[in-house]
């Protein structure tokens, strides 16, 4: 019964006898039987457990240290000072000492952490202007309405960078010092650049095009309300790190997913001793220029020092989850085996 030409002949209306139209396409019908399921289960269990062990070993070799400096040491003074809005602009320095019990080998990352800071509130999140940050002149002068009420200052000047996120930028700064047991204190050198995504630094964030100075490019814009300096003077040390491509700004603008988060501040420069192998064990102090008030949201501030493995920072969850999952699958597999051996006669009958 071949295909009959449509429209003619006595079988003009006969449907095609093709496998597709007759729903007879060759099909693979996997059936869940003990013989197919149990091997898969055992295999999965083994894979999960092995992965879990590997991850666990990896995580055990990473190190992390958190120092909550909100009211620590001399910072208690600054903390109190920041409670008073009138004193908000007064600078305040403080020092917090801490101890690293065990050497942090390899690359060490220096983070600042915030607790209970919701960068993920819907309206806060939306309060930014991508077009402005990518350096479009037009958006520089007339920021997006998403930035409201942080789009213009009281004089009607457009704010650059506009929006609540930029406005609330974290502005504490840190200097880490190593106190070797046998000598003078050594400042810990940190890379303060190269802490962003490459694409952020080079594609998503661009300064407005200019032939002259950055300052002229930003002429006619106001600095965000809470900022102490305009955006083109964010990094006094490195002129090329100013404007929208300032690393700290870029890091801050990538809104954290959860209210408790950390953001990268710097990476240990391992060019010279005693830091060529990482951070040696011992006493350290961190000097903080304490600007960022946290009492308004019952928050905390911390400094986090961490090494990273191939799958990120120190996080025990994944290895444990893999181990537990592997275990559960294994138990399920054993239970299934027992059940099939004991009760599965009917199933077997069908097989034979």
């Amino acid at each position, binding site marked *: 019964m071949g295909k009959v030409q449509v429209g003619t002949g006595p079988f003009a209306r*006969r449907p095609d006898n093709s496998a*597709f*139209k007759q729903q007879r396409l060759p099909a693979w019908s996997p059936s*869940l039987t003990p013989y197919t399921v149990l091997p898969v289960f055992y295999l999965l269990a083994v894979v999960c457990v092995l992965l879990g062990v590997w991850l666990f070993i990896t995580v055990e070799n990473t190190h992390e240290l958190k120092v909550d400096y909100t009211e620590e040491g001399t910072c208690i003074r600054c903390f109190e000072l920041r409670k008073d809005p009138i004193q908000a602009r007064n600078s305040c320095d403080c020092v917090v000492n801490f101890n690293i019990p065990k050497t942090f080998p390899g690359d060490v990352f220096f983070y600042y952490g915030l607790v209970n800071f919701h960068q993920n509130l819907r309206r806060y999140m939306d309060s930014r202007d991508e077009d402005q940050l990518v350096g479009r002149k037009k958006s520089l002068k007339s920021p997006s309405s998403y930035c409201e009420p942080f789009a213009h200052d009281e004089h009607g000047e457009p704010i650059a960078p506009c929006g609540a996120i930029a406005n*609330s930028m974290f502005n504490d700064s840190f200097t880490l010092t190593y106190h070797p047991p046998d000598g003078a204190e050594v400042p810990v050198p940190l890379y303060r650049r190269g802490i962003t995504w490459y694409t952020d630094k080079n594609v998503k964030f661009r300064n407005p095009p200019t032939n002259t100075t950055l300052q002229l490019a930003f002429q006619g814009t106001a600095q965000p309300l809470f900022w102490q300096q305009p955006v083109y003077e964010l990094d006094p040390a490195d002129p090329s790190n100013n404007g929208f491509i300032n690393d700290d700004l870029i890091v801050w603008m990538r809104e954290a997913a959860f209210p408790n988060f950390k953001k990268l501040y710097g990476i240990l420069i391992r060019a010279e001793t005693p830091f060529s192998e990482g951070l040696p064990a011992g006493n350290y102090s961190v000097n903080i220029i304490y600007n960022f008030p946290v009492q*308004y949201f019952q928050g905390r501030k911390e400094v986090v020092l961490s090494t990273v493995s191939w799958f990120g920072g120190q996080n025990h969850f994944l290895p444990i989850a893999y181990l537990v999952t592997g275990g559960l699958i294994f138990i399920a597999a054993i239970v299934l085996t027992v059940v099939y051996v004991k009760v599965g006669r009917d199933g077997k009958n069908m097989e034979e």
Partner: protein
Amino acid sequence: MTWRDLCSWTRRRDSSESERRLESNLPYEGEKSKNQPNRHYAGNAIKTTKYTLWNFIPKNLIEQFRRVANAYFLSIAILNFVPSVNAFQPQVALIPICVILSLTAIKDAWEDFRRYQSDRKLNRRPCLIYSRSQQSFMERRWKDVKVGDFVRVLSNEIIPADILLLHTSDPNGVCHMETANLDGETNLKQRRVVPGFCDTNSTFEPQNFNSIVVCEKPNDNLNHFSGFEKGNKKTGFGIESLLLRGCTVRNTADASGIVVYAHETKSMLNNNRPRNKRSKLERKMNIEVFFCVLLLIFMCLIGAVHVIWLESFSTIPMYFIPNSDGTYTSSALSGVNMFFTMIILLQVIIPISLYLSIELVKMGQVYFITQDVDLYDEERDIRMQCRALNITEDLGQIQYIFSDKTGTLTENKMVFRRCTIMGTEYPHSENATRLALLAGETDADEEVIYQQNRRPPLFSLEEAQDGPARASARLPGNSSLHRSRVTAGASSCMAFSSPMETEVVPDETLLHLMENEEDKSYLDFFLAMAICNTVVVSTDTARRQGVTGRRNSALSSNPLECMEGLFSRATCCKRLRKSLEKLTCRRDSHAEPFDMGQTSFYDVSAFTNSVEGFDEDENAPGHRSNVNRRPRTGSSPAAPLEVCYEAESPDEAALVHAAKAYGFTLLERTPDHVTVRLPHGKELKFKVLDVLNFDPVRRRMSIIVRHPRTREIIMYTKGADSGIMEAAETQGDLDMYARDGLRTLCFAKKVVNEQTYSAWSIRRQEALAAISRKKELLMDTAADMENNLTLLATGIEDRLQENVPETIRALREAGIQVWVLTGDKLETAVNIAYSCMLLDHRDLVFTFNTESKREFSIGLVIDGRTLSLLLDDDLQTQFVELCSHCRSVLCCRATPLQKSRVVTLMRHRLKVMTLAIDGANDVNMIQAADVGVGISGQEGMQAVMASDFSISRFKHLKKLLLVHGHWCSTRLANMIVYFFYKNVQAYVNLLFWYQLFCGFTGTAMIDYWFMIFFNLLFTSAPPIMFGIMDREISAFMLLQLPQLYKRGQQTGGYRRSTFWIGILDAFYQSFICFFIPYWAYEGSDVDIFTLGIPMNTVSLFTIILHLAIEIKSWTVVHWVIMVGSVLVYFIVSLAFSALCISCNPPSDPYWLMQQQMADPIFYLICILTTVVALLPYFLHALRGTLMPSDHLKARQIDQLPPHRRDQFLREWRNLQELCASFPSV
């Protein structure tokens, strides 16, 4: 405005009068339209399109927003424009609803465009209209035809409008018309020129026509029409003078007449749109949608928590943004705002694409059902058709089948079996033997039944018994229906699958008697058989001409097909009412050697078939005369004309053929004459004085002729035994016939004297010209004539359709109760019930009729009169109770109204899914049931037109229900559950969990574009494919094990628990999909959209793999779509991440996907989450293997090699029979 509206609108315009008056347009030709006398009547151009180019967008939008779902989604999209509430960028939020709307709009536009095209094609067909200025018929287009125009139709052309026939080329003023396009009946119908205008010799001069035509208003009754022409005298006419639009003129060189109905033709008014029923599943599903709404509201109340959370701060945190005036919204108000924001955010819980998807799935399902080659009838070239597009899954839940008998269980192919003349019975045993043999050759199964039950029971003249009720059940306007025209559809030549069946071997005794004695009563009997009918004789050559023309017209274009396009929502649902060409060809091709030259005309395949079918002839040359020649009757083999009978009902054909077997050959029939060749070669030409057509109230038809030799006026009457005065000595034989399952017809004769006749004739003419009470008057006059009859009798057999017993047994095994509701006599019905295994010989049959109450067990047989008592209010409950204990119920002598009441009663009282199947005209019953199935068979097409599904054989019901029904309901149920699961799981819950971490402010951690893509691109195709193509169990197994159908019956494969399990599973999976990434990233420097990527990905994996576990059979299409979906996800996500730098402010998906895919933790999360999320479901899916359900066992058996599979099946069935025989165990 649809054409129906148009019609009703125009109809309203002439509703001022109770009738339509029209006159010739010719005197007014060229004048302004306001002077035209017929200007109020609609022209012939048809417009079935819903939209025009201009109003498409607004009208389509309005139409779409009538759907609550669309309105809901639109309002949510609009809500998004409220700044304090919005969750996404308002413009982007409009995208999903726009996509859905435009998809639907494209679908509608395409359908409408097809309608437009077919309209145009139809309107542009050429036709001949008389023009006064040119003094001749000019070629115009169909759309130019106006009421009052004179139109000429040539042979084999299609009639453009309803035309009152005024002239034909035929000297007798007759025109033949084929109505296959209209009702599927392939025999030719005779139409006559309006009496008095029949000036047959001269040419037709329309300009001489100056009468006024008065006729009834347009209506959809194809079989009734009345009016009169008021010229010099008043002449009445009826349907026999009306040429119907869409029909084809045959055997007549040309026919002309005046157009009476242009747009509101009977064929147009008869076209119905596909039915719009709501399936049970859909009704159930709407409740789930309601649950979803509740769930949504509940989840949105979490927005209120935002207020509490806000209150926990003593001061306002810096990340909390003031309004533009620097103030903060009060917490109560912001709570309310949050509630709405959450609604926008979580709206997807009510799946926007669900309705569209269901529609697509059902279209796909319908496509596959209609494509099934097993449901195709080769004999008649008819496919299975779905008229109702949205109740496919109801086929899988049928619990009760109510079947008619005539044309449903039986072939409705009549064979003359035996007769009794003047009290003497002639059993025709040779003929019976031959038929049994024939049956044995064609169908071995059937032969068994033949032997078991002496003869397969046939049935008495149902038309006669049903008659009054049929008429009363119809709408008042329709009640004058002539059943012989409506229902009895098959031509003699087509009524039989093999020409052998038309043959009758004469009874030796009877032949002997006839030859020796020339008894007058025998002569009368056979004469009556030969002439008392409406059989049209057409010569083979004429017929061929017809076929030729039809072939041509089929090639060019068939107006029916054009019209079909208009009303069919999908191509698969086309009306297939076309002629049964193949059979015609077959008959033609083996009629005569000299025909062979012509057979090259037809497809070779047809010819080959015909040769195969004729092998027997070579073995038995004596039987070579197939249709019309029997050597012993003395008709010359070299007869110049081969006659072929076009009968309107199969029994008429059978009788004419039987008469011919005895040498009484009907040679010609014109309105005025009937010519019969007698056994000895003499030809008798009777003048026909009058024909009293069959009507269901009288249940008989009569013909009044003048005998050419004796000059006597003789009336022959034919009808059911109850329709003709009963004669005692024959009654016994009739009862015996009925017990044998034969259908009985009686003939009677009356000699009328001249005075009586002429007096009667005047009254008759008056009645014919009447309009208002025409029906009653005609009836009265007929009744006046038909009295004092002398009786003769005969018996006819109706063969059981093939595989009916097997089908009924399979349906029974599938747990479906099969009832037969028939208008037949009790004995006939019981007999046929036995032969089709509805009643088993082991059954104790409890017969109910008012006279006797016998012993009772499983089978229940109810008489019509009893039924009417049982259907009374006070007995209903007991009746239903009684029926629920019966294995089978047989209602005989039931009227159509009773049938539909039984169906309604069972449906409402027992809350069961019912299916009604009928092959003829029981529209009531079909519409009363949840699912109506029509058999497009020998009789009229009314049932088919009213049905939801139409098949051509009863046996097709088995595959339709057991396979397609099962598949459709399982597929759709699984699809819907999956859809709910998918929507709850995918985003709604992920987003919901995230609210715990973002101060309940309605933040989404996934870019909104990704969400749109997710629903519209990545996860839309798999469930649709799943709903159309998944196959849990193969068709083979479903047919082998009908009991697999039972699952669908009880629950429809879709339980509320399934829904809730799906929702719970969705909650669990979304919990895993959210919290594993959460914990994995906790305390890290991950940003919000980077977090969203793995969540999105694991959601997709979970959803796709969840479906993968659900899919029972993987074909190429499955693989392509499933793997394709994942690939598309990665490709689109990567492309979007790479291209969108700041295109979607304020979220920024730039380089996210790339960044994540370069990070090992992404893969670790994906693997772990997917495994953990699916583990419970996997175990859930496994549970079946411990205590395998029948379905699982069937699947396993199906995978075995064929010989082992068969062995298993046998064992299984034996086991079941064993179980069935010990029900207590």
